[in-house]
């Protein structure tokens, strides 16, 4: 009974998305709800049946068989053979057993990818894209999604409902974009996956498991893109590389009581060497073609951070990478990180001069950086900046880090 209680939630996650993706492809985007309902009913049936019959030898096969039957019954019952259904079904005879619901590995993967493009559609907000991706493609429950976004179930339900409506109205189809569109659509998908990963990596939600799961799901979906020939492009590999490098530090980033451990204080031995190796593998695969994207640059910067040693070479490389990154995609975070690299590569004086020009007032990380730069140069100014940072910081975790710096300034920074 204990075993089953652990097995079903895990199965639910992985098999839900597979079943829903395939059924969505069959029913069309207008019937996402139906696909979700069938999947949910299947798992309900599993819970009920397995309780007294025990877990079957091949649980996935059992689930697929039940889902198939329910789908066929649904088709027959609702008499879907009308103009509303997808053209594919229209060609099939009215006997429901002729409808093929292909749950082979290849079709599952293809359907998920096509679903990924459908869900990451530019007509809905990125928030909605992430929400839908988590629900349909990652099998997250509404409550889990609410937790991840630090909001409530009603908000998420509304968001998802409106997003699905929009997709229906836009008549978004569940298929691979044409060769003409694919690069542009891929950009939207990658942005969403990048944001999804960041949600997990920087999330303020107290649930550590949800956080890591978000990152893992982002990586899984990005990896799916690398398997398909059409979508296996350099920026995709660059993004996956970046995710691997960041994820490699998961265990080292948090102390036992959930406190953030910054980069310089981390125990290198806790860095996941396998993930670092994967990151390098995908980084190499991304170095093709002439198009250097922000993902390429970020992945290369992340690569240098897998080397903890403070060499001139490391920081000069990181500085130049940030120089290029800021030129194609400005962000305050990149500007601050670049300034830190500047201090390491060109010296403190130059970095302080440039830092003062940034004027990122209202941003506590800005004042933290200034505090660090002034540390050995002007103790009073250093303290003043750290105190400003403390006033601006919102979360307890952030405030604690700044307090530590005030008490015992050390060369730590990112995590």
């Amino acid at each position, binding site marked *: 009974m204990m075993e089953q209680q652990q097995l079903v939630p895990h199965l639910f996650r992985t098999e839900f998305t597979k079943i829903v993706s395939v059924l969505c492809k069959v029913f069309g985007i207008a019937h996402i709800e139906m696909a979700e309902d069938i999947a949910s009913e299947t798992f309900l049936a599993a819970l009920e049946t397995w309780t007294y019959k025990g877990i079957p030898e091949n649980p996935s096969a059992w689930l697929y068989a039940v889902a198939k039957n329910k789908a066929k019954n649904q088709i027959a019952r609702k008499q879907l053979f009308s103009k509303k259904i997808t053209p594919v079904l229209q060609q099939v005879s009215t006997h429901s057993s002729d409808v093929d619901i292909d749950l082979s590995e290849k079709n599952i993967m293809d359907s998920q990818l096509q679903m990924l493009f459908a869900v990451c559609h530019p007509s809905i907000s990125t928030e909605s894209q992430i929400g839908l991706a988590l629900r349909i493609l990652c099998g997250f429950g509404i409550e889990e999604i609410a937790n991840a976004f630090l909001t409530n179930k009603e908000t998420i339900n509304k968001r998802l409902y409106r997003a699905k409506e929009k997709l229906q109205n836009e008549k978004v189809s569940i298929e691979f974009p044409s060769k003409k569109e694919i690069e542009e659509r891929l950009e939207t998908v990658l942005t969403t996956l990048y944001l999804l990963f960041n949600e997990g990596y920087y999330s303020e939600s107290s649930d550590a498991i949800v956080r890591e799961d978000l990152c893992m799901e982002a990586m899984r979906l990005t990896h799916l893109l690398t398997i398909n020939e059409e979508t296996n492009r350099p920026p995709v590999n660059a993004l996956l590389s970046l995710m691997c490098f960041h994820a490699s530090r998961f265990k080292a980033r948090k102390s036992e009581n959930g406190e953030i451990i910054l980069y310089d204080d981390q125990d290198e031995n806790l860095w996941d060497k396998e993930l670092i190796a994967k990151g390098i593998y995908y980084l190499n695969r991304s170095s093709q073609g002439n198009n250097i994207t922000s993902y390429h640059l970020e992945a290369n910067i992340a690569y240098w951070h897998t080397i903890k040693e403070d060499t001139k070479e490391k920081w000069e490389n990181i500085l130049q990478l940030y*120089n290029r990154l800021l*030129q194609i995609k400005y962000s305050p975070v990149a500007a601050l990180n670049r300034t830190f690299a500047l201090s390491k590569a060109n010296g403190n004086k130059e970095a302080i001069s440039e830092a003062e020009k940034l004027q990122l007032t209202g941003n506590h990380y800005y004042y933290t950086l200034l505090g660090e730069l002034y540390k050995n140069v002007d103790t009073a100014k250093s303290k003043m900046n750290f105190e400003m940072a403390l006033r601006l910081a919102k979360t307890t975790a952030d405030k604690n880090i700044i307090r530590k710096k005030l008490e015992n300034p050390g060369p730590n920074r990112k995590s």
Partner: protein
Amino acid sequence: MKDYLFLYRSDYNKLAQRTPAEAEAMMKKWMDWMGNIAAQNKLTSRGHRLQNTGKVLKNDVVTNGPYMEIKESIGGYSLVKAASYEDAVELAKSCPILKNGGRVEVREINPM
């Protein structure tokens, strides 16, 4: 914030006389200077470098020019954002070309 053009003028011959080490050092200075501007979110476009060749068309006559032998050929351009000429000039002050006898022409873009 307005857009300003930076026109870089220098001696092409001097450029050709540099050693690889000097060229590399100069490259870093340029990248760092551009990076400084980009970090302030004031770089509209890093622009382009121009080849050491050119043609001039005037009154239907085409000549080879402007002559690259003069010490102040336009070597390239960039676009930056600034609130005023003063601020734009401030950004230009640390342009590496100035230490090499070159100059930066700052012109305000006319947004039609």
